[in-house]
């Protein structure tokens, strides 16, 4: 009884596949999503360009205040190397500019090392990442080098094997402690929203 049922099912599948060969190809086209897109040693260059959104300053007692900065511009270059289909490590060099209430230009130039985990949903990828490193902060005659932490995520559409395009959302956390006058220490909180172009090779 069971054996007959299996035979009928197999026969029905054979008929359907013979009648509709496209289905078989369709299944084959979707199969790469299930396979590895990246392997150990593959490299990626990424260019990001977009907006720098000042959020707030916070002192080390928790009080929050306005940054008095305008919406600015952000840009960065990233090189990364894949460890496997999901993990990527890299370095990123970027910069932002923004205008103060006094119409002076405020700059930050972060240099970070970055680790990312990539979720795949072909033809899309969703890297979730964390960067950490140093941030050169410049405003008028004053300049610092501060620590920076950059958690964020991207949504990428893979145009083909080589190119991908998408959007980044990155939170910038820049603590600026000031040992000489601890009450003047602040933590900078900013947001980067940028378009991204990725080249893999």
């Amino acid at each position, binding site marked *: 009884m069971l054996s007959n049922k299996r035979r009928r099912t197999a026969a029905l599948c054979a008929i359907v596949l013979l009648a509709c060969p496209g289905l078989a190809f369709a299944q084959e086209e979707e199969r790469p999503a299930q396979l590895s897109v990246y392997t150990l040693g593959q490299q990626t260059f990424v260019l990001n360009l977009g907006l720098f959104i000042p959020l707030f*300053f916070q002192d080390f007692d928790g009080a929050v*205040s*306005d*940054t*008095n*900065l305008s919406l600015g511009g952000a840009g960065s270059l990233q090189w990364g190397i894949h460890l496997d289909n999901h993990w990527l490590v890299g370095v990123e060099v970027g910069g932002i500019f923004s205008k*103060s*209430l*006094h119409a*002076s230009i*405020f700059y930050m130039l972060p240099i970070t090392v970055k680790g990312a985990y990539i979720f795949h949903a072909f033809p899309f990828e969703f890297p979730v990442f964390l960067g950490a*490193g*140093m941030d050169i*902060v*410049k*405003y*008028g*005659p*004053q*300049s*610092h*080098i*501060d*620590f920076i932490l950059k958690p964020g995520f991207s949504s990428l559409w893979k145009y083909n094997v080589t190119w991908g395009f998408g959007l980044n959302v990155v939170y910038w956390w*820049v603590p*600026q402690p*000031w040992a*000489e*006058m601890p009450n*003047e*220490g*602040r*933590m*900078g909180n900013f947001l980067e929203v940028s378009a991204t172009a990725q080249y893999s090779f």
Partner: protein
Amino acid sequence: MKNKAMLMSLLGALLALTSCRDLTLDPVFYALEKEQPLEDDRGFPDAAIVHRIVKTGTRYFAAANKLYSRTDGASDTWTVVAPPVPGAMCNTLEVFAGQIYAGFYDKSIGAGLGLYRSAPDPISWNLLGTGTSSQITLIKAVGSAPPRLFVATWSGSAYTLSHSTTGDDGDFTTVSWGTAPQADLPIIDVDSNDSYYWVVVGNAVYRDDLLAGLGTLAVLPAPSSGTATYGGVFLASTGTLYLSGGNGLLHSSIDGGGTWSSSAVVLDDKDNPVPFAGFALPTSDTTNAVYVGTRGFGYYRIPGGAVTATLVRSPAYNISALYNGAINCLLYDGSVPQARLFLCTSGSGLWRGDYLSGSEWSWKQE
């Protein structure tokens, strides 16, 4: 183990890099947080070169090539005062015996038009004979018993210094020098305590030792200003005499210039000595604090009037037009409900500081 060493090296490098900061300046985020809008449009041109500002009664006058005036009302705006000759430019002024004295020059050829006098309101200019064909480079009222008006002129080849106790036409006398200074050295500043008169000419200080009236001015041994000219001389109401050097040094004397104290270090910016200029004593600040302008480095505060103390450059560096400003003149006005300090800049217009507390002022561009 190797990774741990690398991580420690990276952290060490980051720690070392965080020390690359100017500790004399506020941190960037703090400075940004404290910023206030600087615009307070009172109709004064923002890019003007302001030579001098004075106050008589309730009215300010500012020489910024054009002569401007406004009352000390909280919301009054500046208006241009008609010059005595169409197109004449004003480069200096002073209040003496309730009258405005102003020096004008011809904009098109740069030649001096002489010294003019007027009542403050309404303005009606009268040409005085002094320096009629010369450029007026300095007008300064000093002393109180009697008050005396000094006028320096430039003929194109020589400076001349005259003085008068009335300011009337025909009552000006050329000062007598023991050893006359080089004719083309600018006469920079004058002050007096009614006993002594001090005159700064180029990089030399002269003093009258007559101790009554005004006698012969002789070179006073004073701390050197190097090859740079002095910036100004100032007798504070505390009785201390201040002298500003062009070489990053400030000096003070409590005996009229007999002995001097000098700043402990040469103040500089990236190894450029600060060229100091004129002084003010804003009495709303803490006791005896004296402010001194500079040519390109804002102003410095002398706490307690002691030039040997640590001097702090002001205002905050994010007010870059003042922080890097050449301050031609300071005027303190303590007669209004919120005391004011005016700073005349070369190219960044006129700034008003409304006193807050301690050494803090809220700065607005007029």
